[in-house]
């Protein structure tokens, strides 16, 4: 299948959009349908925890620009409920069935909800993933709450706390791990981030969990912590990380589970037996894929740049014959801005045993931290030093020795690598934004009978 046929894309956000554009740009002339559960056309999520909360941009105004015209049928506000891989059909919640020759799964993630459903229903308890979520939260912050509680100090939680402080709001951040961002960036930068938050007036409480959200007449009034502490708060943002949207694939026979949909380096989905399919592709936050730079560990990334790059590779491979297919080898990269700092990362900081401040200094708040694993460079994170990062990306791509030679213009005070102290994800409130999932098989396979096909597998 090169120029014609039927392609269905499920998930009409960043990855789905860029894949659709790439398909048309590369000459796909068949029928193209995009299915999206949200009623909105594709929009950009990163501003939702930044410009939007600061009141500079309205949550409705973050639509993504199109890169090229896409001739496609859009089914928005409709959820895909299942896939029949034998008949090659996507079954929609409104009853329609969409036949495909090639399917792209780009269903991303959603915010992990507060585990206690009664408490989660209290007025004032929110999560942040969609533009509707952001509109609600921005409105709450604009109303001037007395105190905001942020549960979980990953990137999104930390960015929310930063916006609150910038708006002059009192904010408490509760994190089960030893410091903010530690799950993504390890101990040295986690400690830095903790000091940064406190210096900006955040009431930061690490090593505690929120044991209860308290309410009166259906409204949130405060929270209790595992250390016996309690606070009053009228807004609580649950920032416990993301859940991959794979439930709709239950029973499809695909290797889909809580860690995402497993695929090969060419974005082709695996089935439950680890056999690669040739008509089902995966891209974006929902994908779980092997990366040669990281010992072929399966990576699950929640990064804007990965969604774009992987969507382009998936789209290309969907309409290309075998020898023309490309691997998705992009070095992972993301950014965050919080407390006035620009944080950028290349590589996989959690794939490390040591870290060194290679340029600048933590004290100045301008530096590059370089991460190594078994003697080679695997990641670098810059704080207000974005221009230096490209060099380290080259070191990662070429598997350069760690620690890197301290040849830079400004030498740090000490150039001794220290353990990178990446904690087990179990110790964190928020999920990691990069999960190394290679050593942790999701579930045990059991063979069962199945209506769709006698060979489909279910999992427990």
């Amino acid at each position: 299948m090169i120029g014609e046929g039927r392609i269905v894309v499920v998930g009409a956000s960043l990855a789905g959009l860029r894949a659709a554009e790439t398909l048309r740009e590369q000459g796909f002339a068949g029928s193209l349908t995009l299915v999206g559960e949200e009623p909105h056309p594709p929009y950009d999520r990163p501003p939702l925890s930044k410009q939007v909360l600061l009141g500079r941009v309205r949550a409705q105004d973050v639509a993504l620009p199109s890169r090229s015209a896409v001739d496609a049928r859009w089914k928005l506000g409709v959820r895909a409920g299942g896939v029949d891989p034998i008949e090659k059909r996507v079954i929609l919640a409104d009853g329609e069935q969409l036949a495909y020759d090639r399917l792209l799964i780009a269903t991303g993630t959603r915010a992990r909800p507060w585990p206690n459903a009664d408490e989660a229903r209290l007025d004032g308890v929110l999560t942040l993933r969609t533009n509707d979520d952001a509109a609600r939260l921005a409105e709450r912050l604009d109303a001037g709450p007395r105190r905001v509680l942020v549960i979980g100090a990953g990137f999104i939680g930390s960015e929310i706390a930063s916006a609150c402080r910038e708006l002059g709001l009192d904010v408490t951040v509760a994190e089960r791990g030893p410091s903010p961002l530690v799950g993504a960036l390890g101990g040295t930068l986690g400690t830095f981030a903790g000091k940064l938050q406190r210096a900006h007036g955040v009431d930061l409480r690490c090593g505690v969990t929120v044991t209860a959200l308290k309410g009166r007449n259906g409204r949130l009034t405060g929270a209790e912590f595992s250390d016996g502490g309690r606070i009053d708060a009228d807004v609580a943002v649950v920032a416990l990380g993301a859940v991959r949207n794979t439930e709709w694939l239950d029973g499809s026979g695909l290797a889909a589970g809580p860690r995402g949909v497993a695929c090969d380096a060419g974005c082709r989905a695996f089935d439950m037996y680890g056999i690669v399919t040739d008509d089902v592709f995966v891209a974006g936050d929902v994908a779980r894929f092997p990366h040669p730079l990281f010992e072929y560990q399966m990576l699950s990334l929640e990064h804007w740049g990965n969604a774009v790059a992987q969507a382009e590779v998936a789209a290309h491979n969907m309409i290309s014959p075998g020898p023309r297919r490309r691997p998705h080898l992009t070095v992972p990269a993301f950014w965050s801005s919080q407390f006035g700092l620009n944080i950028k990362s290349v590589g996989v900081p959690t794939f490390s045993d040591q870290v060194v401040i290679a340029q600048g200094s933590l004290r100045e708040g301008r530096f590059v931290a370089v991460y190594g694993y078994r003697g080679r460079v695997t990641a670098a994170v810059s704080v207000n030093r974005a221009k230096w990062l490209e060099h380290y990306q080259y070191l990662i791509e070429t598997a350069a020795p760690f620690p890197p030679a301290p040849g830079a213009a400004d030498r740090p005070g000490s150039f001794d690598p220290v353990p990178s102290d990446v904690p087990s994800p179990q110790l964190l409130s928020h999920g990691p934004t990069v999960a190394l999932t290679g050593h942790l098989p999701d579930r045990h396979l059991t063979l069962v009978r199945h209506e769709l096909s006698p060979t489909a597998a279910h999992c427990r």
Partner: protein
Amino acid sequence: MQIVVDLNRCQSYAQCVFLAPQVFELHGEEALMFRPSVPDDQHERVRRAEAACPVQAILVGEPAGLGAS
């Protein structure tokens, strides 16, 4: 007109900030913030910023999925 900046690529050169300060601003030393929805009177300036960006990080286009149902 909508825009998005690939902030992995952006190196905070700030050319866009000089050319269209109502749309692009530096937050702190080097974190770029932009208005995704460009006001009508800023189109020309944003086009110039797009062309001037040394790393071509600015994507300008019509809202994606226009006319989608």
